[in-house]
């Protein structure tokens, strides 16, 4: 009964909205010309990167905070139920089973390639599609592969070093966002230095995002508390 009601409501909603969209006139305002005007001083040549790290860079700053919060939540959820007040415990016991040799070989082969490809994608982001997030996703995928090859262990909680590395990109971003406050607005880069600052932010973010994204997986992979 509830199912029928929900399905009917969803179908009615979709029909109503699609009907309204079919004769929706063109948007009143167009940001494309505005963005095109801003491009020369944005510090990058690729418009999506300009929006992501310059005109709406503040969104991205908060978005990284959301990722860190998710990582924290995963750390909370993977804490063992019997956890005592011992903040020092970091790594899970090593995994007993050995990896498939094929997977190991593949991981050793792919990882350097992934690093090179990630650096390329990061660098390309200034001119064409690509950037920090995509590069980080590639690195994270490599890390997950290394985990399957039993080279990178799963963690119960990230160690101090890992935490610093995971936060470093966010910290760099935060510092670069705060610096212009001395004379202007949050994240207002001087146009001459914009390109360099964006590259600095993106480089930091690539490393940190890769660790956070891989962390979401590696913390989960260590089954919390085991199955009772």
């Amino acid at each position, binding site marked *: 009964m509830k199912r029928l009601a929900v399905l009917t409501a969803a179908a009615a909603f979709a029909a109503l909205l699609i009907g309204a969209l079919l004769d929706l006139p063109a948007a009143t305002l167009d940001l494309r010309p505005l963005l095109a005007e801003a491009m020369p001083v944005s510090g990058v040549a690729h418009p*999506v990167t300009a929006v992501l790290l310059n005109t709406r860079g503040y969104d991205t700053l908060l978005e990284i905070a959301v990722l860190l919060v998710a990582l924290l939540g995963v750390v909370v959820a993977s804490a063992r139920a019997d956890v005592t007040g011992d903040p020092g415990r970091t790594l899970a016991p090593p995994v007993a089973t050995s990896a498939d040799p094929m997977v190991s070989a593949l991981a050793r082969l792919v990882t350097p390639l992934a690093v090179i490809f990630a650096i390329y*994608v990061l660098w390309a982001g200034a001119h064409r*599609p*690509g*950037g920090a*997030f*995509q590069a980080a*996703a*590639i690195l*994270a*995928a490599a890390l*997950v592969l290394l985990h399957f090859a039993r080279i990178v262990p799963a963690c119960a909680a990230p160690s101090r070093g890992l935490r610093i590395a995971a936060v470093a990109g966010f910290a760099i971003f935060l510092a670069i966002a705060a610096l212009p406050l001395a004379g202007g607005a949050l994240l207002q880069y001087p146009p001459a230095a914009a390109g360099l600052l964006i590259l600095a932010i993106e480089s930091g973010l690539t490393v940190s995002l890769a660790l956070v*994204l891989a962390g*979401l*997986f590696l913390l*989960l*992979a260590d*089954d919390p508390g085991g199955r009772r």
Partner: protein
Amino acid sequence: MSAAFAFDLLLVTLLLLAALRALTTPRLGQSLLAFVVFGLLMALAWVRLDAPDIALAEAAVGAGLSGVLLFDAWRALCGEPADEAPTAERMR
């Protein structure tokens, strides 16, 4: 109707079918598989929408990382994929 539009129509249909399958198929494993297919089709849709950045991110994250996360969670929740049948019944 141009060929490009016909392709879009086909892609949209497949997208909806993959989503429906992911939501309704009784076996959870197939459902997750349908979701990964859905992610790849989404990446294709982003290419058609002139958004290669999103396509790259969607393929790497939407289909790749989320897929791995989901399959790993499924394995942890339901034991080895081999004994899926009894658990899958409970899933419904």
